[in-house]
C-alpha cells in the first residue's frame, strides 16, 4: 500500500521525473537491448497516464494541488501547481504524444538510421517531460530550465535526420529559440530584481507592491516575455523558423512540434499574463490588443502562405501558424467565451494537426510522395490515411460535427462578446482560406480521373502497418467525437477559464 501512497502524495513530480528517468535510460538500453527502446518509451507514457489519472481525480475532488518540491515550501523551494489549466494541458500532451509515439515506433525505423533510433526516444521523452514540467511549474527559474530542455530536445528531434535541410532548419530554430529564451531569462532577471521572488504567486504580490516605483522594469519585462514567447509559439512575424523546422523533421517530430510544443508556450504565456502581471499594467500597455493584431496577421498570412505551398508538410506547417493565431486570438479577446475557444483550440488543434502530420507521414512512408500535385488518386489506395486527412481537413475548415467547428464557434462568439467584429471577419475569411488549400488535396485524392492516369506510372503503395493506422483512426474518431460531444473536454476548460479570469 505504501506504493500507492507514494503515488498519491508525489504524482506531480513523479510524472516529470519518470519521463526524465526513462529518457536517460534510453542511451544505456540502446547499447544493450536496442529493441526495448520503443517499448520503454511507450511504458513511460503508460506510467504517465497513471499519474495523470491520479492527478485529475484529486484536482476534481480536492481542487488545485500545490506540490512543494523536496518539502521546501515556497518562496524558497520550487512549487508545482496542478490546477485545471495544467491538468488540461497534461491530458492533452500525454494523450497526443502517446498516439504520436505509437505511430513513430514504426515510422521512425523507416525515416531514421538505426543508430540514432534509441537516442531519438531520449529526446522525445525529454521533450514531453519538459512540456509537462512547463504545464505544472509555478516558478520562474524552473520554467526557464524546462524551456531550455524543451528547446534543445526539440532541435534534437528535428536534426536527428541529419540531412542538410534538417540541420539547417534546426540551426535556425536553435538560434531563434535562443533569442526567445534569452529574452525570457532577461525578463525573469528584471522581475527578480524588483520583486525578489521567483515563485509566480509571490512575485505577483511583490510586483503589485512595487509597480508604481519601477513601472519601466515591469513593462520591459512584459515586452521581453511577449517577444520570447511569441518567437517560441511562432506567431507572425516571428514565425520564420517554423515552416522549415516542422516540414523537414521526421513526421512524428513534426506532429509533436506542431501539435503540442508551440501550444505549451502559449499556455505558459497565458499563465504569466494572468498570474504574475498586475491587471492595471494592461491599461498602460495594451498587450491584449497587440496579441489580437498579431494573431489576426498570423491567421491571415499563415493561410495565405499555406495556399502557395507545394510540399504537403510545408503546407501543414504554415497552417499551424494560422492555427496558433486562433489560440492567441482567444487569449487576446480576454473574455470567457473567447478564452474557452482559444484553450479548446489547443486541444482540438493538437488532435487535428498531429493527425494531419501523421497522415502526411503515412503517405510518405507508403509512397514516398511529398508533393501535393502528385497525390492524385491516392485516396482510393490509402483509404484510412486519406480518410483521416479528410476529417482533419474538414476540422480545419470548421465543418460542423468536427471539433474545429466548436472551437471556431466559441472564438466567433467571443469576438462578438468583446465587440470586436473585425476579428469575426478574420475567423470567417480564414476558414474560407483553409478550405482553399485543404479541399483540393482531398478532392484530388478521391476524385481523380482514373482513365488518364494509365499512361503515367502507377503510384506504388506499401501496406500500412497496424501501429500506424490505429493512431490515425483514434485521432480521427477523437476529432469527430469531440465535435459532437465537446462537453467532455469543456468540463475542464470551463473551470480553467473560470479560474484564470
Amino acid at each position, binding site marked *: 500500500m505504501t506504493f500507492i501512497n507514494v503515488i498519491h502524495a508525489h504524482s506531480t513530480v513523479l510524472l516529470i521525473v519518470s519521463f526524465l528517468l526513462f529518457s536517460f535510460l534510453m542511451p544505456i538500453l540502446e547499447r544493450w537491448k536496442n529493441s526495448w527502446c520503443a517499448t520503454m518509451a511507450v511504458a513511460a507514457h503508460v506510467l504517465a497516464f497513471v499519474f495523470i489519472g491520479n492527478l485529475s481525480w484529486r484536482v476534481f475532488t480536492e481542487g488545485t494541488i500545490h506540490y512543494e518540491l523536496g518539502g521546501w515550501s515556497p518562496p524558497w523551494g520550487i512549487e508545482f501547481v496542478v490546477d485545471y489549466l495544467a491538468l488540461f494541458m497534461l491530458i492533452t500532451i500525454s494523450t497526443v504524444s502517446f498516439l504520436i509515439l505509437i505511430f513513430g515506433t514504426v515510422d521512425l525505423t523507416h525515416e531514421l538510421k538505426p543508430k540514432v533510433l534509441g537516442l531519438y526516444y531520449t529526446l522525445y521523452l525529454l521533450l514531453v517531460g519538459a512540456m509537462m514540467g512547463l504545464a505544472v511549474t509555478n516558478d520562474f527559474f524552473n520554467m526557464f530550465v524546462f524551456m531550455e530542455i524543451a528547446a534543445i530536445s526539440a532541435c534534437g528531434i528535428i536534426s536527428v535526420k541529419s540531412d542538410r535541410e534538417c540541420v539547417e532548419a534546426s540551426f535556425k530554430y536553435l538560434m531563434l529559440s535562443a533569442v526567445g529564451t534569452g529574452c525570457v531569462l532577461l525578463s525573469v532577471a528584471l522581475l527578480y530584481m524588483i520583486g525578489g521572488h521567483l515563485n509566480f504567486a509571490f512575485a505577483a504580490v511583490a510586483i503589485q507592491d512595487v509597480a508604481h516605483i519601477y513601472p519601466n522594469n515591469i513593462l520591459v519585462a512584459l515586452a521581453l516575455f511577449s517577444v520570447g514567447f511569441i518567437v517560441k509559439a511562432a506567431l507572425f512575424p516571428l514565425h520564420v523558423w517554423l515552416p522549415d523546422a516542422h516540414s523537414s523533421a521526421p513526421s512524428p517530430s513534426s506532429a509533436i512540434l506542431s501539435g503540442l510544443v508551440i501550444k505549451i508556450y502559449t499556455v505558459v504565456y497565458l499563465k504569466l499574463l494572468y498570474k504574475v502581471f498586475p491587471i492595471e499594467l494592461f491599461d498602460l500597455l495594451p498587450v491584449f490588443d497587440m496579441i489580437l493584431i498579431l494573431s489576426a496577421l498570423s491567421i491571415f498570412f499563415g493561410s495565405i502562405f499555406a495556399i502557395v505551398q507545394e510540399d504537403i508538410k510545408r503546407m501543414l506547417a504554415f497552417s499551424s501558424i494560422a492555427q496558433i493565431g486562433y489560440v492567441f486570438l482567444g487569449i487576446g479577446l480576454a473574455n470567457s467565451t473567447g478564452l474557452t475557444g482559444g484553450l479548446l483550440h489547443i486541444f482540438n488543434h493538437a488532435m487535428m494537426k498531429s493527425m494531419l502530420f501523421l497522415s502526411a507521414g503515412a503517405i510518405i512512408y507508403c509512397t514516398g510522395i511529398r508533393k501535393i500535385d502528385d497525390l492524385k488518386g491516392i485516396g482510393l489506395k490509402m483509404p484510412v490515411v486519406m480518410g483521416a486527412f479528410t476529417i482533419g481537413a*474538414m476540422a480545419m*475548415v*470548421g*465543418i*460542423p*460535427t468536427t471539433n474545429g467547428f*466548436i472551437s471556431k*464557434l466559441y472564438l*466567433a*462568439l467571443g469576438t*462578438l*462578446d468583446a465587440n470586436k*467584429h473585425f476579428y*469575426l471577419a478574420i475567423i*470567417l475569411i480564414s*476558414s*474560407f482560406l483553409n*478550405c*482553399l488549400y485543404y*479541399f*483540393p488535396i482531398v*478532392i484530388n485524392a478521391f*476524385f*481523380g*480521373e*482514373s482513365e488518364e492516369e494509365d499512361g503515367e506510372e502507377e503510384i506504388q503503395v506499401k501496406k500500412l502497418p497496424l501501429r500506424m493506422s490505429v493512431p490515425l483512426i483514434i485521432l480521427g474518431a477523437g476529432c469527430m467525437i469531440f465535435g*459532437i*460531444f*465537446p*462537453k467532455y473536454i*469543456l468540463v475542464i476548460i*470551463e473551470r480553467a477559464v473560470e479560474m484564470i479570469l
Partner: protein
Amino acid sequence: MGETTTSFLPVFVTLFPMLMTLVIYYVQKESAKLRNKLSVITSIITFIAVAAMYPQIIRGDILVFELFEIIPEMGFVGTFRVDILSFCLALISSFVWMLATIYSIDYMSHEHAQNRYYPTLIFTLGACLGIFVAGDFFTLFIFFELMSVISYVLVVHEETEEALKAGYKYIIMTIIGGLALLLGVINTFELAGTVSLEHTGMITTASGLAFATFIAYIIGFGMKAGMFPLHVWLPDAHPVAPAPASALLSGIMLKTGAYGLFRVFFNVFNVEFLQETNWIFVVTVLAVITILLGSAVAITQYDLKRRLAYSSIGQMGYVLLGMSLFTEAAILGAIFHIFSHAFMKGCLFICAGAIIVKTGKRDIRELGGIGIKMPVTMIAFTTASLAMIGIPPLNGFLSKWNLALGALDGGAPFYVVVLLISSLMNGLYYLPIIINAFFGEEVLHQEIKADDVPFKMLLSIVVLAVCCLIFGVSPINLPFDLSRMATDLLIGGGI
C-alpha cells in the same frame, strides 16, 4: 392550436438513414444487390416514418425531441421540432427521394463507383431531413453543412473534368454560404440569446448587426436556393450529376435554402419588422431578377439538363418572390410551389436521364422524334413541362395563380407582369422540346425499341408525372391543404 408532444419520429427520420449508410457501406462488399435493396428499403422506411407524423401534425400538434446537448451552457442543443411547415418539406423530400432511389437502381446499374453513390445518397437524405426537422438554428446549420458538403460527392460522381470543375465551384460556394450562415447564426445568438425555432421575432430592433445578420442569412440560404447573384454554381453543378442526383439537387436540396429563408423571415425576424425596415425589398428585387434571368438564360441553352438547371433558378425565384411578398395567397403559392416544383423538376430531370441513357444525346436539337420512340417518358416530360409553364389544370398553374393573387393582394401588379413574362419564357424553352420530340423531323437514326426504359425508372417517372396532374385542381389535394395549413401557421404567427 395543438399541443407540443415529444416524439422520437423526427430523430428517427434523420438518424436512421445516416446509420443505414454504414450498413449499406459494409453490405456492398458482400452483394451489390443487397446494397441496392437496402437503399430502397431505407428510403421507403424513412418516407413511411415521415408520413407517420401526419395524424399528429394535421391536428396542429408540434413534435419535439431533445437528442443531446452539444454545448449545454450556450443553449446549443440538438433539438428537433416538427411543425406543419417542416412536415410539408420533409414529406415531399422523402417522397421524391424514395422515387429517386428506386429510379437509381436501374439508372446507375451501368455507372461506375456505385459503392460510393448509394451510401452518399442515403446519408444526404438523412442530412436533408435533418434540416427540416431541426428545432434550432444551430442544429439546422449542422445538418445544412453536412448535406451541402456530402452532396459534393453526388455532384462530381462522373469524375469528368467538367464535373470536377463544377464540383470545385460548388464546394467553394458552399463553404462561403456555410460561413455566411454561421455568421448569421452566431449573430442571432448574440442579439437574441437564443436560436431556438420556438421563438418568433427574435430580432426586432434595427441595428447594424441585425442587418448584417439578415444579409448573412440571405447569402447563406440564398446560395443554396440559387438566388441571383449567388446562383453561379447551380447551372454547372446540377447538370453534371447523375440524373437522380440532379433531380434531388434541383427538386429538393434547393428547397432547403427556401425553407431556411422562411424560418429566417418568420422566426428570426418577423413580418412587421421586415416590412417596416424595408429589408425584405432586397429579397423581392433579387427574386424578380432571379425569375427573369433564370428563364431568359434557359432559352439560350441547348444542353437538355443545363436548360432544366436554369429553369430551376427561375422557379426558385417564384418561391422567393412569394415568400417575400408576405401576403397570405403569396405565401400559400410559395409553399405550394415548393411541392409543385419538386414534382415537376424531379420528373423532368429523371425523364432527361432516361432519354440520355437511352440515346446518349444531350443536345435538344438532336432529340427530334424522340416522342414517338419513348412515348411514356415523353408524355411524362410533356406533362411536367406544361405544369412548369403553368397551364391549367396542372399543379404549376395553381401555384402561379396563388402567387399572382398574392401579388395583387399586396397591391403590386408589377409582379403579376413578371410572372406572366416568365411563364411566356417558360413556354419558349419548354414547348420547342416537346414539339420537336413529337412532330420534329427524326434526326435520330438509332433504333430504339418502344420505351425500352427499365420498369423501375418508368415507375418513378410516371408517379411524378401523375402527381403533377392530380395535385393540380383536383378536389382532393393533399399538398395544397398542407400548404394552406402551413400558411395559416406562418401568418397566424403561431410557430
